[in-house]
């Protein structure tokens, strides 16, 4: 197993700042927008972006954690069930603009499941997707992100590991790992 850094710490911080600027550009003061971070690996990114946005807009923004495990389409098709994580959405998304946040967009199946899971909390006005890494040309279903940190082209035998921490850290990096 070999691994190499594809995005270093400096670039990662610039990327997160840029994503926040793009969000502010289209969501104004976030008065009608909520952020849903996908469990488990979208949570750290969600927290970081949420913190930056609250600082920039000087407003309180709703942040929830959404787990899509019970909505997955591969249940009973794998060796065993996946471990479920906590869903914490202490608000309704009825009529709201929702930003889904995840680390890597690969086949798109998790995002599809998340959109199903999200509907239990109301009918949103619109839904957007933010991902740190978009693995190009690897989609199983037609789902495209609205905000992308970096597009990456890699093989199926490779894996992108996004090591973003909940609190800013000099060790934050993005790796390309050969399985």
């Amino acid at each position, binding site marked *: 197993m070999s691994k190499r850094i594809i995005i270093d710490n400096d670039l990662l911080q610039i990327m997160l700042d840029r994503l926040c600027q793009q969000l502010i550009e289209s969501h104004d003061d976030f008065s009608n927008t909520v952020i849903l971070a996908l469990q488990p690996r979208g949570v750290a990114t969600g927290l970081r972006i949420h913190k930056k946005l609250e600082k920039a807009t000087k407003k309180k923004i709703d942040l929830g954690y959404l*787990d899509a*495990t*019970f*909505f997955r389409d591969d*249940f*009973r*098709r*794998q*060796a*065993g*069930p*996946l*471990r*479920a*994580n*906590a*869903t*914490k959405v202490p608000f*309704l998304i009825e009529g709201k603009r929702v930003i889904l946040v995840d680390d890597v967009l690969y086949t798109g199946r998790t995002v599809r499941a998340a959109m*199903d*899971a999200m*509907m*239990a*909390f*109301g009918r949103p006005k619109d839904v957007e997707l933010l991902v740190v890494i978009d693995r190009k040309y690897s989609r199983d279903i037609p789902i495209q992100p609205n905000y992308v940190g970096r597009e990456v082209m890699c093989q199926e035998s490779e894996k992108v590991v996004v090591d973003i921490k909940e609190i800013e850290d000099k060790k934050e990096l993005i790796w390309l790992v050969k399985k």
Partner: protein
Amino acid sequence: MSQLSVKHLLGIKDLTLKDIELILETATQFKEVINRPIKKVPSLRDVTIANVFFENSTRTRLSFELAQKRLSADTINFSAAASSVKKGETLLDTVNNILAMKVDMIVMRHASVGAPHFLSKHIKANIINAGDGTHEHPTQALLDSFSIKEKLGSVAGKKVCIFGDILHSRVALSNIFALKKQGAEVMVCGPATLIPKFIADLGVKVEFDLRKALLWCDVANVLRIQLERQTIKYFPTLREYAQYYGINKQLLDSLNKEIVIMHPGPINRGVELSSDVADSGHSIILDQVENGVAVRMAVMYLLAGNK
């Protein structure tokens, strides 16, 4: 990936500590699901479950049925009273006929000890034991552990006393296994005639004095006197039982300590528990019922998830 080490839930005895922890952790997520505005997830939409009840039940059966509906499973219900069992069909034939209709999972309650174990050796579907005679009632023990964990933060190190008819209780046996595996201290308390011989071999303390047992424990799991299973007299009268082993507010107040009161239901008010205790702030009896749905969802989800 996280899966159970068993294909059927026949008893707590067969589960590992890891299995119990996985079920309780998954149940925590399902408890959040059943408190949402839309209480349903699609996980088991291609699974058919038969609830086969050869013995009466209200709570357990409703709880299983609700859990199945929340998971989007298709369900059929069968009760022995209105079936061909009365015409002399054997258990295996009855179940095989149900399975021929493409059923994936069987939830069974039976008056005979070992009935689900027998079935598990002969059929392919997943089996969940919803109570077999005086043997085990695993989902009740799991929901009891879940409720203790929710109330007190953990099960390990807690002192739990089970009161009442230990001899005829499947809830007691399953609870003893579950609590011991999770590192709790367990005591049983009741009249000597209703405490099975050699129960201390399971690693539990035995106490015949209600007050001493209450002084010892953090959690009191109070059981019903199962008159329907008692073929001989184990104590003179219910009134006398209530006098020696009934828990009332006056008694609890005199102990000067906090005790969590649990009961698997149905309660015989005025016998094992007085109304002012059953309805008090110490009682988590209705939480147990709510948690029952979440725990059963977790069990069925995890069993069905294995390919």
